[in-house]
Each structure stands twice: as C-alpha cells, then as structure tokens.
C-alpha cells in the first residue's frame, strides 16, 4: 500500500506562472479554498523569462488603437486558425487586466503624461506593449506573487504532479504527485483543477524554455481524456542567442527590433526586405528609408519588415543561413549598436545588455548580436471553451500556454502575457463556479493513486537500465532535427518511429540515489509528458499537409484553404497498451480534423475593412 499525505481544496491550480497565479487570485477572491501547486519555487516560473511586454490596446501612445485592431492583428498573426472568441475576449479584456496589475503594485514605464508606456512589437499595428524595460515578465510574476501572498493563498512549492485523478464518471477529483525535496507522495482532492503548466520547449535541443517546460499539463489532460488541438503549431522565436554554444537558444527580446534593431546578413544587407509576404505587403515598408521614419511616427511610413510576425522572421533567417549568408556561428546579425545611442540601449534593454556582456562577452552598444531561431512557445494545447476555459473533461480547466486556440498557428509577441492574465482570470472564475455548483462527494480512486505511485518508484527497483538523461538528450535531438522549424513528411514519419523507440527505452530507466531531491528521478517522471506531447506535435505535423504560421512543411510550402478551417484534434483512444509510468502509450494518440468555430459576420467585417 503506497503511503501519501492528503489535502483537500475546492480549486487546485497546477502551475504558478502568470496564468496560474492569476487563476488562484481569482478563485481565492471568490472565497474558495484554493491551492497553488508548482514544480519549482514560487516566482521562478517561466513567465519571468518574458521580456518585451504585455499587449493591450490601452491607447496611451496611439489613440487610434482599439480592441478591434488588436483582435484583427492577433487573428492575422495566427493565420486565422485562432479560436475567434478567445482572440476577441483577449483583445477586449487585456487593458483592464494590465491596469489591474498597476492597482496591485506593478510599476510600468511611463509616457510623458504619466500613463503606462507602450512599445512596438512584431505584428502589432500600433505601439501596444506595456513594459518595464526588458523585464516585463518578472514584474508580472512578482506582482501576482505578492498579491497571492497577501491574499493568503496556500502554495505547495517544488511539488511535481504525476497524474490527474478522476472519479467513476470521468470528472476530475484531484491529483497525485510528490514533494521534490523529500520525495514523499501527496494526493490532493479537489472539486475543480486548473492546468496552468506552460509549455513544452524542453523536448527540443535549442530552446528558450527552462527545464520545467515539459508539457506536464498538456499530457495529464490528454491522459485524463481531454482534447488537444494545433499541437503542430510550435513557435520558433526568430532571435535566440547562438554563441557560445552553451547559451544557444537563450532569448533575445523582440523589443530589440521594436526599439529600432535591424537584422543583417553576412553582407550587411537588411535582408527582411526580401521576404515580405503578400499578406503583409500593403502595410510593410519597402525601403529602409520609409521603415526608419516609422519608428518615430507611425503615420510617416509603413512598418519595417523586421517587425513582421515571428513565423515570417524566423523562416527568413533560416533561409539566409541556408543560402550561406549567415553569421560565423550559424545565425544572422541583430544590430542595434549602429541604430541607437549606447545610453538608450542600456536604458531600454538593460537585461539584453547584461546577458550578452556576461554570457557572450559582447557589448551590444558597440557590436551586433548573433541570433537565430530558438524553440519558444507552443500555440497548440488543451482545447478549451473560450468564456470559461473549461476543457472537454468535467472539472478540468486550462489557461495560459497549456491551452490551445487563442493564438492560432502563430502567436504575436506580447500576446502571451495578456493571454495569461485574461484567461488565467477566466479559468479562476470557471473553476470556482464549477466547484461551487458541484454536488455529491468527490471520491478518490485508490487504484489510480497506487498505480501512479508504483510506476513512479519502479525505476529504483530496476538494475542496469537506461539513463534518463540519455533518453532526454535523444528525444531533444530527434525533435530538433526531425520536427524542427522546417518539416518534411519522410522525416516526420521517422520521428514517429524514434519516439516509439524512446518510449520503449523510457520503460527501462533505472535509478539510484533515493527520492529526495533527485534530479535524475525528477527527469524520469517528466519523460512520459515529453514523449506524449512530442508525439502529438509530430502527429499533427504529419496531418497538416500545408505551411501555416508555426508549422512549415518543405513538401507543402503553401497554405491550403481547406486546412485553414480545421484543427487537428488529438485524443487518447485507449487500446490498453501501456506507456511509461502507468500512462497510456503514445501509440494510442489519434489526430482527427474538426472544423474550427466560425466567426460571426460583424467580426468578419473587420477583416474586409482592413483589405
């Protein structure tokens, strides 16, 4: 009989980044017994890595802005694959969510009039990103963290959740996990659960994501019967560091380009002018001169092509390097040194200045940065109902990066932080209402609990098996080389075979060193999640025979109209085959095309006006 401690709450939020904290604050404010569970210490979640800003049509810099323009930018940036209702709610509510942060102590940079300053970013028609230098994510998480502490929300730190628990009719009843410091098991009983676990980037070699981004929430929802959508849509941020090797993938904020930085190839050419797609030609500058005028006055010229949506910029960098016009270490040059004064750069981009100075020995006020695409964000995720953030499993809600639909095939910079706030709050409301209305007692299934615990400790009983670090390394190499920024059918098929092999190997992991703060064990328990989401991404990529947003196929290089009206929905069709750690096998995941929600006519008109 497995030993564990038990806790009971109305609402449990898994993940303490922006979405999780915002959801917890909302549930607590409604008087529910609320707990926040997170894999790291409080305040360390990946949200701290967000740099450039939070997008909201506050109209503090450009009065012409509105939720309608923000909505339109978001949908076009997402190549119209977005859930229109999520994009609408997001554009409408983000200004209030940003102002609310200020009421809770956040200190954004100011305009001359003393209001919240907004900066330019790729794909946003107007300067729209409220920011604090280039450390906006830190400000957001600290503000929410301090608010959560003030509200007395219970926080369970350094606790890894293994599985969702469900009762007889499939409704969520809680979770099972373990304390990382002690290695002891914990069971939570809950009336409603919010998944706010973030992304999946740790399945790629070069990523801006921290070790936590292993897709736990995506996978746990999938295993519990939830639908995932758009898992093939993975954002490769155009500008990650490329040198030194050990820092390869670390993010270089889009704010560098928003503040005047330009991309150059080895010949010194601003090559983005060669890659303006027809969809954005009407609003993009066609000469350096015109683009440069735009920075100071958006009516004096059209926006420079360096500020096209991220998918466009990442693909263009990829093409330049492929054509042999890259920088010495396989990227391109991002130059702000010749464009802005040293003082301006240090004031506007202090983190970037220090990051390059300390990690690469490069002074960005004097020389260009070398940058290249890095795995950054997954647009796909758990399918949710837009207004309530409810998933297709009763009692389970999802918000933030783990939820799919909001960003379609490609996310605009700055829309992630606003997404966290808008849908974190909505998930908090949705979960609170579900918990309040839930009748009957919540029952825990002892069989599910012991299966999860037994599977978790099994590697300690095995001898001379696989090293989990090797499996992780090989998984990353597989996804990086076969399911990367540019994909092709034969390589995706090969990836499926490799993932099957990796699943088999993951069943043979052996461990020693005990359960207390054992990173080898922690990684082993993350492997099932990574394998499941990697399989979903690969399967979605095989099915989406077109190129759209964050999904590019060499063998299908153009968007296909019919594909633009479907999501590939991924589910577990449990055929009884066992995966790793008492989870369903990744071989039982299926992908089915289903129509995306149809936009009402009044919103459609916004797009006709624009063209």
């Amino acid at each position, binding site marked *: 009989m497995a030993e564990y401690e038990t806790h009971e709450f109305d609402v449990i939020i898994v993940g303490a980044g922006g979405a999780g904290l915002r959801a917890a604050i909302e549930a*607590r*404010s409604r*008087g529910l017994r609320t707990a926040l569970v997170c894999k*790291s210490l*409080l305040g*360390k979640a990946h949200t*701290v*890595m967000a740099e450039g800003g939070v997008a909201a049509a506050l109209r503090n810099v450009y009065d012409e802005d509105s939720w309608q323009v923000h909505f339109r930018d978001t949908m076009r940036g997402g190549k119209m694959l977005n859930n229109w209702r999520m994009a609408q709610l997001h554009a409408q509510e983000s200004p209030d969510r940003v102002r609310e942060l*200020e009421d*809770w*102590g956040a*200190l954004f940079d*100011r305009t001359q009039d003393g*209001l919240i300053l907004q900066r330019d970013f790729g794909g946003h028609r107007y300067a729209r990103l409220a920011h*604090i230098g280039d*450390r906006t994510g*830190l400000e957001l998480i*600290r503000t929410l963290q301090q608010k959560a*502490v*003030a*509200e*007395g*929300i*219970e926080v*369970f*730190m350094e606790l890894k959740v293994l599985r969702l628990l469900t009762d007889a009719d499939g409704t969520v009843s809680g979770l099972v996990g373990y*304390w990382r*410091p*002690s290695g002891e098991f914990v069971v939570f009983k809950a009336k409603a659960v919010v998944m706010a676990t973030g992304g999946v980037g740790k399945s790629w*070699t070069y990523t801006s994501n*921290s*070790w936590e981004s292993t897709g736990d929430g995506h996978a746990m929802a999938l295993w519990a019967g939830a639908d995932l959508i758009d898992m093939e849509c993975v954002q490769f941020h155009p500008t990650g560091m*490329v040198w030194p*090797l*050990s820092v390869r993938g670390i993010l270089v904020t889009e704010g560098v380009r928003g503040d005047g930085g330009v991309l150059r190839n080895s010949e010194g050419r601003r090559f983005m002018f060669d890659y303006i797609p027809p969809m954005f030609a009407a609003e993009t500058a066609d000469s350096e001169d015109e683009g440069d005028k735009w920075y100071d006055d958006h009516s004096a010229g059209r926006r420079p092509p360096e500020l096209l949506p991220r998918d466009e910029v990442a693909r263009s960098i*990829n093409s330049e*390097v*492929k054509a*042999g016009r*890259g920088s010495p*270490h*396989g*990227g391109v040059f991002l130059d702000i040194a010749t464009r802005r004064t040293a003082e301006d750069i240090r004031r506007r981009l202090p983190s970037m200045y220090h990051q390059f100075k300390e*990690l690469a020995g490069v002074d960005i006020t004097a020389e260009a940065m070398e940058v290249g695409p890095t795995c950054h964000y997954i647009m796909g995720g758990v399918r949710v109902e837009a207004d309530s953030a409810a998933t297709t499993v009763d009692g389970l809600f999802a918000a933030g990066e783990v939820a799919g639909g909001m960003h379609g095939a490609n996310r605009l910079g700055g829309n992630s932080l606003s997404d966290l706030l808008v849908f974190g709050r909505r998930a908090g409301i949705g979960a609170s209402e579900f918990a309040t209305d839930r009748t009957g007692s919540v029952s825990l299934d002892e069989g599910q609990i012991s299966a999860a615990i037994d599977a978790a400790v099994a590697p300690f009983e095995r001898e001379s098996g696989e090293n989990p*670090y090797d499996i*992780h*390394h*090989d998984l990353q*190499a597989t996804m*990086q*080389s076969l399911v990367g920024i540019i994909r092709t059918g034969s390589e995706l098929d*090969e990836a499926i075979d*490799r993932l099957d092999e990796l699943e088999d190997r993951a069943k043979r992991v052996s461990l*020693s*060193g005990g359960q*207390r*703060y*054992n*990173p*080898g064990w922690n990684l082993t328990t993350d492997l099932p999640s990574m394998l499941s989401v990697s399989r979903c991404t690969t399967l979605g990529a095989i099915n989406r025979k077109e190129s759209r947003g964050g999904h590019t196929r060499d063998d299908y290089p153009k968007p296909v109209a019919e594909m633009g009206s479907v999501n590939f929905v991924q589910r577990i069709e449990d055929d009884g085959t066992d995966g790793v750690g008492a989870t369903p096998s990744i071989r039982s995941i299926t992908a089915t095309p289903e129509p995306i929600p149809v936009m009402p006519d009044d919103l459609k008109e916004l797009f006709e006006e624009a063209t």
Partner: protein
Amino acid sequence: MSEVLDVTPGDTDVPDTNGTEPERGGDTDHEPVSNDGSDGNGEIVMRLWRGDETGGEFTDYLMPSVEGEVVLDVIHRVQATKAPDLACRWNCKAGKCGSCSAEINGRPSLMCMTRMDTLPAGETVTVAPMRTFPILRDLVTDVSYNYEVAKRIPAFSPREKTEDEEEAGGYRMQQIDVERSQEFRKCIECFLCQDVCHVMRDHEENKTAFAGPRFFARSAELEMHPLDVNDRRELLQQEQGLGKCNITKCCTEVCPEHIKITDNAIIPLKERVVDAKYDPVAWLGRKILSRTKRTPAEATEDAPVSGPAAVQPSPGVVGVPLPGYAGDEAAAVTHTSDPPGDEAAAVTDTSDPPGDDTSSD
C-alpha cells in the same frame, strides 16, 4: 534537413544534429545536455559538495573543459554522465529566475551567470551550497525562511485614483518617480544577499528577528512606491532588525542584478526610521495632520477580507509546511559536519561585530 542552427558550413564547433542519427554517440561534436565530449580545451576538476542535513563532503569530478560554458553547464554534464542524482536547483539558465544560487570558489554567485573562463585557469572549481540556509541535498538549500519573511511585510496598498486618473483609465506617475522602486523590482530573489549577510550567516539566532537585505529592498521599494500608503518603518525597526545591518555592503557586492541594496534601500530606510523616531516636528505633524502612510496595525485592519491578514503574526500560519522543510526548526541544521562554506568568507566582511543594534542608527 534545413534546420537553421545546423547549417553552418565549416564550423566544427556547431553540433551536427541534422544527420539521420540523432542517437547519442551519433554526434561527433559536443552537446550541451548529455555529452561530456571534450573540445580539446583540456580538463577541469569540479569539487562539488555532496550530502544532506546529516553531513557530507566535497567530491571531485574530472570533466572535459568546453569553450564558453558557465558553471551550471558543467554541473549538468556531471549529472548527465557521472552523478545522475546530484541535486542542483535551476530554472531559466539565463540569470532571470534566481534559482541556481551557490558559492563558487567561496563567492555567492549564480551558477548560470558564472563563466568558467572567468575562474582561475587550471585550478579546481569548488561549488558549495549557500551556507546561510539549511541543506536539503547537495547544492540545494531550504530557502523557505525567505518566503516566510515575505509574508510578514505589509502588502502594497495604493492611494485612491483621482478623477482625472479614473477618466484616463489609470494612475499617473512620472518615469523619474517610478525608477526608484523599479531598481528594487529588478530583484530576481536569488537570495544571495541573504546568504552573504553576516547578521544571519554567522548568527542563526538572528533569523527570528531579521528580515535581511532582500526584504529591506522590498520594504524600500514599497516605501518609495509613488502610490503606496502603508508605513512599514516601525515594523522594520522593531521586528525586522533594520538596525542590525551595519552597512558592510556585502549584499550589494554579490547582487547579480547590480541593485545598490545598501546605498539605495537600506541607508534611506534607516534615515526614514530615524526621522520617524526622533523628529518632533514630523511626529507632531503625523499626529495632527492626516497622514499619507499607515502603520502596520492600520494596514492590518483593512487587509483583504477573503484571506488572512496581510501582516502575519508568526511564520507558518499561511501555507503548508513541507515535510522537514518549511518552518521546521528541527530540520534547520546548518552544515553540522564539514561546513562547505568555509571559503565563503571571501566577500564577507566580519570585521564589524554583527548584530550590533546600535552600530549605525
């Protein structure tokens, strides 16, 4: 395959993952995650502290040296190839989350921001856990003390918006006025300042009545916040031990965010506390005129109804203590055997008697 990061011709330092053999060993070049392959830069000895609260010792790991690496990279290679259970806390690996704090060659530092090539060439690199906090395992310490202190600082409480602000949709503040607090809001909570502060480092008993530099900076941030109306001065003096700081500036020296904790937070706070105590005009003014700042007791009165009071009378009321972790006095055994932080005095100025309440008020 057309992966952008893999197509640099002729650059042998770029790992080749574009082949059809992604399996480990298929690469001829080094990988950051689980390959210890040398790039011909020689070898390094990593002397890492291994153990738990009952004791432990330094263990040497001979590792190939790789160009451009930071200490955390080498630790990861040790985990992947030699010691899979080596405990080490980290998240972002970019100096933004403040998780990977340790004492490197005796100096409290972030492992992710310490480049190997900044350490003396050819010499053993010693990595020990932070000495001021109880050890959980290897390089990981129990920093829950800091989270408990955070709960006892009266929360942010803004003034009302003016009519103009209601109309404009938000508060009006000038850039110059927000910058003072913004400096402290850069804090990534790595707790290196707490680690180095000799008031706690050398005097475990002081922890019960000492908030430490991180939380003096937090209080300074709130006190200087253009909108905040709470007054934390009495609390700082009476319960958080502001007077115990004797301004040796060790905290400022180790801050990876280069926050001038002593000059810009602690000294101004000390001045404000002195003003509050001894200035009769200010005292009278506060008595007669409507005050803009509220005392902790007043702040408690309108703490959010939905949660426990913002000011917690004692630690451990909010939140659930972790087993042998949060708030567990018995577990707070600090390096009983073979203290790994011996060399850590490098930046710790102990020439002034710590904990002297009168030294600098």
